[in-house]
């Protein structure tokens, strides 16, 4: 994902963890400031636009809920791309990227679920319905958590990465199947009714803050991801140095 957003020259730089750490160090302050700026603009827009005549103030929840949901799906896409990078091109940073995207993606998925249920309570009168979209999202959340648990359970980072990559890709392939089956399950039990909400056209009045917020959240995602990747590289370096310390003491 990120590779494309940077200059071609830096692709080789990216493959080298040391250069990546340096690059991340230079890039992070800019990304962080951009994120803060976008959030400032976005939040101002969120609260200055008019309330919807039908949904009232609750429409403002959408400005968080929808970007969070997009980011949750993008996070998994980033992980899937990284998993492909691990398995196919054996890119040394791909498994770092995959591992670090999981907690961030899980965070955004949780946010989407929470805001969704906070939106649903005044709109539908209940915190949670087993609607197809919500249910699929809940399954996505479980998949994220499972991956985090898998990453934590393995002490050998390299081996964990390959196994996790397989699981990520199987999950990715499985997403349409899950979506389809959940849709089928849902319509089997209850006709699509009240649960369809704001599906089609969004008033341009609401589109502007939504887009800015989506951009802000995307920047936030990449800032966090980059920082987490840098930390992960440090973590691996520490592990390598500790092993070396143990070996060094043995030869001494």
């Amino acid at each position, binding site marked *: 994902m990120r590779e494309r957003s940077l200059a071609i020259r830096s692709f080789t730089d990216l493959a080298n963890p*040391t250069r990546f750490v340096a690059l991340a160090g230079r890039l992070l302050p800019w990304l962080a400031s951009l994120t803060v700026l976008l959030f400032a603009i976005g939040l101002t827009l969120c609260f200055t636009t008019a309330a919807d005549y039908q949904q*009232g*103030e*609750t429409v*403002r*929840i959408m400005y*968080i*809920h929808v970007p*969070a949901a997009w980011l949750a799906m993008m996070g998994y896409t980033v992980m899937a791309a990284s998993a492909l990078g691990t398995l196919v091109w054996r890119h040394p940073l791909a498994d770092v990227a995959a591992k670090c995207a999981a*907690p*961030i993606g899980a*965070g*955004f998925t*949780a*946010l989407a679920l*929470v*805001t969704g249920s*906070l*939106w649903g*309570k*005044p709109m539908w009168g209940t915190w949670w319905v087993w609607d197809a979209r919500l249910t699929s999202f809940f399954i996505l959340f479980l998949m994220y958590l499972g991956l985090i648990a898998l990453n934590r359970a393995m002490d050998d980072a390299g081996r964990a990465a390959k196994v996790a990559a397989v699981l990520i890709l199987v999950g990715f392939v499985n997403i349409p199947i899950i979506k389809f089956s959940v849709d089928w399950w849902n319509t089997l039990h209850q006709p699509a009714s009240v649960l369809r909400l704001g599906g089609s056209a969004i008033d341009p009045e609401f589109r502007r803050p939504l887009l800015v917020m989506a951009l802000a959240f995307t920047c*936030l995602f990449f800032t*966090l991801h980059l*920082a*987490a990747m*840098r*930390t992960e590289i*440090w*973590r691996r*370096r*520490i592990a*390598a*140095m*500790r092993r*070396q*310390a143990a070996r*060094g003491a043995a*030869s001494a």
Partner: protein
Amino acid sequence: MSAHLAYVAASYGAALLVVAGLVSWVVLDARARRRELQALEEAGIRRRSAGGGAP
């Protein structure tokens, strides 16, 4: 409407909580790792690729 405002406030609160949680996790983790790295380097342990002199 005020009841609905509470839901809006709760959503933004939740967003703040999640974002703050993620940011503090990333920052604290980075700080802890950096400190460990410094401690190891002060103890005179060098990485093979960086040191070159190590056996």
